[in-house]
């Protein structure tokens, strides 16, 4: 057992998968440059030396290297692509949505595209174009699996599961959760470290995780919001409200079994999402809850999400954009008493 942050856990997970399977390689911008950063958030630091020729630095060409990853995956490789910032996925979306996601279907089941696309998301003092919550844009794409990790344990276990999966997996990470040190440390970072077992393990790509048990209200979150929801639960508990916290984690498919079991117990659900409220993942989850266990609800579903605006720069505004613990507490309190 060792204590690790997400960046280290991902690095070890990638290294272990590359050791296990020669078909695994990494591709992206600035991921293996000697004297460089190991990717924008240090995840691949040192791997180029360990795996010569298998940490492939690309030109600044997101569409291009994504297409390269798709083509390589079709021919039996297992690429882990690194999108420096999630926002750049728009450039790569043709290859992801039109090729990676559809290739198996269009070919009548002949083709497998076993690739992982890692992408950091989240508002972190970088203005509007290095900040968006991108997971919403991919959950409705048949053929893609979408996960969003919030702990180092899941980061390693789900990364390994994603690499071993025969389908394209969108793998979202939050910039405030990496736990990177030194020059790449993020102001406002949240501790997402975990005890990591020495032995090999995987975390399934289709299961939500109950992070805290409670009886009166279910709070759903993922990425940074899973941490904020847990912090909110502590405050709520002090007021005598016991919230059940679920880290949704698997955004496509969504684990309605775990979510439904909780809602049947609490009858109340609050969904917390960093990102504009309109058209978000929370909207999809809310509709899914109505279909799966709507009859168990004792009160209407509540969403706490960002305003329908681009991510602002000024820290005052950015903090107002991002759902925070007080807002979650207030919404949960109101819901619990409704």
């Amino acid at each position: 057992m060792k204590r690790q942050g997400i960046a280290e856990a991902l690095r070890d997970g990638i290294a272990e998968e590359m050791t296990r399977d020669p078909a695994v390689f990494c591709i992206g911008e600035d991921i293996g440059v000697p004297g460089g950063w190991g990717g924008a958030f240090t995840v691949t630091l040192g791997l180029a030396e360990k795996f010569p020729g298998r940490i492939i630095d690309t030109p600044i060409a997101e569409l291009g290297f994504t297409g390269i990853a798709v083509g390589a995956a079709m021919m039996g490789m297992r690429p882990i692509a690194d999108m420096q910032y999630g926002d750049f996925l728009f450039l790569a979306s043709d290859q992801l949505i039109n090729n990676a996601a559809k290739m198996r279907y269009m070919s009548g089941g002949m083709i497998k595209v076993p690739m992982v696309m890692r992408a950091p998301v989240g508002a972190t003092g970088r203005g509007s174009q290095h900040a968006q919550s991108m997971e919403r844009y991919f959950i409705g794409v048949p053929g893609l699996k979408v996960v969003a990790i919030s702990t180092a344990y899941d980061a390693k276990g789900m990364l390994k599961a994603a690499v071993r999966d025969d389908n394209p997996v969108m793998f979202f990470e939050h910039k405030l959760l990496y736990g990177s040190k030194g020059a790449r440390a993020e102001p406002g970072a949240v501790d997402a470290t975990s005890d990591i077992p020495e032995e090999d393990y995987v975390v399934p790509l289709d299961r939500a995780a109950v992070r805290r048990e409670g009886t009166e209200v279910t709070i759903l979150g993922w990425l940074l919001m899973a941490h904020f929801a847990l912090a909110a639960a502590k405050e709520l508990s002090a007021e005598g409200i016991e919230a059940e916290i679920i880290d949704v984690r698997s955004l496509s498919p969504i684990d309605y079994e775990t979510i439904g079991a909780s809602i049947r117990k609490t009858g109340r659900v609050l969904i917390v999402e960093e990102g504009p409220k309109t058209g978000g993942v929370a909207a999809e989850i809310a509709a899914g809850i109505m279909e799966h266990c709507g009859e168990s609800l004792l009160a209407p579903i509540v969403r706490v999400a960002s305003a329908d605006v681009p991510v602002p720069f000024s820290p005052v505004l950015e903090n107002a954009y991002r759902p925070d613990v007080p807002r979650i507490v207030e919404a949960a309190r109101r819901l619990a008493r409704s």
Partner: protein
Amino acid sequence: MNAPAKDDREFLLGLHERMVLIREFEDRVKFLFLEGTMPGTIHQCQGQEATAVGVCAALEPGDFITSTFRGHGHALAKGLTVQEMLDELFGARTGCCKGKGGSMHMGNMDKGMVPGIAIVAGGIPLAAGMALAFKLQRRPQVVACFFGDGAVAEGAFHEGVNMAAIWNLPVILVCENNLYGASTRVDKVMRNPRISDRAASYGFRGETVDGNDVLAVHEAAQRAVAECRGGNGPVLLELLTYRRTGHSRRDACHYQPKDEREAWFSRDPIDRFAAKLLERGDVSAADLAAIKARVDAQIGAGVERAKAAALPALSELTEDVFA
């Protein structure tokens, strides 16, 4: 296996038959479409048979091609059967993509053809990635990536070609320059319409070839394949050709000037090659007529079977999304 020498009679007749097969297939598909029995839309390649046949004849069975929305000729040239293609066009479960691909996504991985990529230039980075896999796996295969003149204006062309160049990937970039991207003439969308010139700016070799001369195409493709297999890829082949039919199903080609059409029609790849074959002395008009008859019979039988082929069960709608 080396391709047979080009003076081999059987090989040459094989090239001819393959081109005739594509022409007759396309003409029959157009008829079926106009007749109203075939669903969907079609993008046809009558007039461009020599590019598909010349390039694919230079490939080994284990090599791959990527294609576009105009892929029927590439598919037939790479060895897909008339039957699996007609079945696919009729939306049958026995089609090469189980009826889920259709005209624009024709393909069969067992025969080395990725389903057609119908997003212009979308196949170029993909082909480069396939070639990267071959390089990383130390496999001897190459990829021939077909695209049109219109693709050159796409960002995907630049990104994919540049990466193929910096990593010396075994990919033959086959630009079928038929002078029109949909209805827009090539000289309106590029200041330098000599597409092969672009290769030099990326640091590799390009050449422009008469794309209506199947032997010229074949020879250029053989050179390119040898270079790519030898680790000296990529190569850009610009094949000058002309589309005899519309961009898609109901396009009457009013934007193609009459004199231009006539000039290109007089350089029809099948007519030219047939004339060349007849000059040899060991090929007779009867030989060519026999080929035509064989092709017609093959297609006729294929159409009958395809019209009666089983359609997918509705339960197949949700199959093949995930592996």
